[in-house]
């Protein structure tokens, strides 16, 4: 114990650890009926860390290009515990996106995007989009049948845009077909470009959270300050946060080991697409919207219209801090809540609809 404390003193004199500790103890986290939602950003962060660690482990044996499927097969069947690492990476990818969605909607309904937290909202939205591109690009990497056709369909969507659509799709694919060139460039995107974008953005996002503290929902804001409760960040909130991480770790371990991620059959462009081919669940809503518009309006016009509407909705969602008037008054702006509920129900309904339409 004595040795430990003298090491601490040695480091403290050079790094100012005590200041950091006092700072963390002074920082407070509000406590109210909706505090549980404060954990979801941290849970998303946890899953990202899992992705970074398991991703680097997969990198040790994964080979992009023509060997993509074979190396994933080796990871799954020949390397000790390779199936587990791969399963954890796949499950945590889905859990991470789910956690970010929960985080985003809780921020929305708590109206935590209002002044001065606009940049937090915007950087968070970009983080979600980058994460979805992480998912889309990672999904192709094993180069199995499902990934092959899902990517094919996904990259056909920009095709319906006039003039530039075709160029974009060909460039992303690296040719007219999804093949080993596509895997290779998706690999570069997945393990170099996206992490290089994600990590600084995450730093910015976390710095803002630290700078402005947790927002309280309007109902709390309306209370006189004396009635608002809060707990110290350190150690109380941090302990709770860590407890959440532990739960997340256990859930992940159970899912990854009890439901190992499937490898499937190698991609073969000569084989017909399997029935019920569909993208990952987080793309199902946009998949269904495009399908519906394609049915309602003839030709490429329908898909283009669907894309435009979807993009407009996304832009409105993105810009909400600029036109939610309660930004100034601190009063509940009902219609923003209705907009959020509307967006949430569109997402849920189209997703369920898409799955129902598969059978």
């Amino acid at each position, binding site marked *: 114990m004595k040795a430990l404390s003298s090491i601490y003193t040695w480091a403290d004199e050079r790094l100012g650890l005590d200041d950091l500790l006092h700072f963390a103890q002074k920082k407070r986290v509000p406590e109210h009926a909706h505090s549980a939602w404060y954990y979801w950003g941290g849970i998303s962060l946890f899953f990202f860390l899992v992705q970074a660690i398991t991703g680097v482990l997969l990198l*040790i044996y994964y080979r992009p290009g023509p060997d993509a499927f074979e190396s994933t097969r080796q990871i799954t069947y020949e390397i000790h515990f390779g199936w587990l690492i791969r399963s954890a990476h796949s499950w945590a990818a889905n859990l991470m996106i789910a956690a970010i969605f929960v985080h985003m909607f809780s921020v929305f309904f708590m109206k935590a995007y209002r002044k001065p937290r606009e940049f937090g909202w915007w950087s968070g939205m970009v983080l979600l989009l980058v994460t979805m591109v992480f998912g889309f690009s990672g999904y192709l990497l094993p180069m199995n049948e499902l990934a092959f056709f899902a990517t094919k369909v996904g990259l056909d969507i920009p095709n319906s845009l006039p003039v530039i659509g075709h160029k974009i799709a060909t460039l992303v694919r690296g040719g007219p077909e999804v093949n080993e060139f596509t895997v290779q460039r998706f690999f570069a995107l997945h393990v170099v470009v996206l992490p290089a974008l994600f990590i600084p953005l995450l730093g910015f996002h976390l710095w803002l959270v630290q700078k402005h503290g947790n927002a309280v929902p309007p109902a709390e804001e309306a209370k006189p300050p004396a009635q608002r409760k809060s707990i110290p960040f350190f150690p109380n909130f941090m302990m709770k946060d860590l407890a959440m991480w532990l739960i997340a770790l256990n859930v992940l371990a159970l899912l990854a080991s009890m439901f190992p991620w499937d490898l499937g059959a190698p991609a073969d462009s000569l084989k017909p697409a399997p029935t019920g081919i569909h993208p990952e669940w987080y793309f199902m809503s946009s998949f269904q919207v495009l399908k519906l518009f394609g049915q309602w309006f003839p030709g490429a016009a329908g898909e283009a219209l669907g894309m435009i509407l979807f993009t407009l909705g996304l832009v409105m969602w993105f810009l909400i801090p600029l036109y939610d008037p309660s930004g100034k008054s601190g009063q509940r702006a009902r219609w923003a809540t209705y907009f959020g509920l509307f967006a949430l129900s569109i997402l849920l309904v189209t997703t369920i609809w898409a799955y129902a339409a598969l059978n």
Partner: protein
Amino acid sequence: MSKTVSQSPGQESPPDTDVATRRAFVWAALGAAGVCYAGAIGYPVYRYLASPVERAEAESAVTEVTLKDAQKLPLGSVLMFKFGPRPSMLIHHQDGSWVALSAVCTHLGCTVQYQPARNVIHCACHGGEYDPVTGKNISGPPPRPLTRYVAKVTDTGVVVSRT
């Protein structure tokens, strides 16, 4: 953790010590749980990383390789092959004898080369040299001779095995 401790009747120890023991117990339990988690994560990761090592070890348990068609090797020439994971060489000497040796330099592990013109085995890394018949280290830094294998010629190839 609450700081109030319910005292059962007849318990003599003052509350302070009680809190201290309880605290120590909680820390020990947390530590034990932490060790379990570290093991449950560390073990698979270790085995995952060590997979190729284990495979190479399994390969080096090999006691015999058959080099197909190697009996046709011309006089005064060499055939490089792998004995398990280990680079090795089969030399067909001018006098018709066959010699199989490990090709891993005993100094710092470079792959050595047979030089027919000088009839020596030479290591380019630090100039070590070996006798091409016995594998004995004859000059330069190598501390030990090259490992020798048994080479048996058959109609269809050469069978190399451990001595």
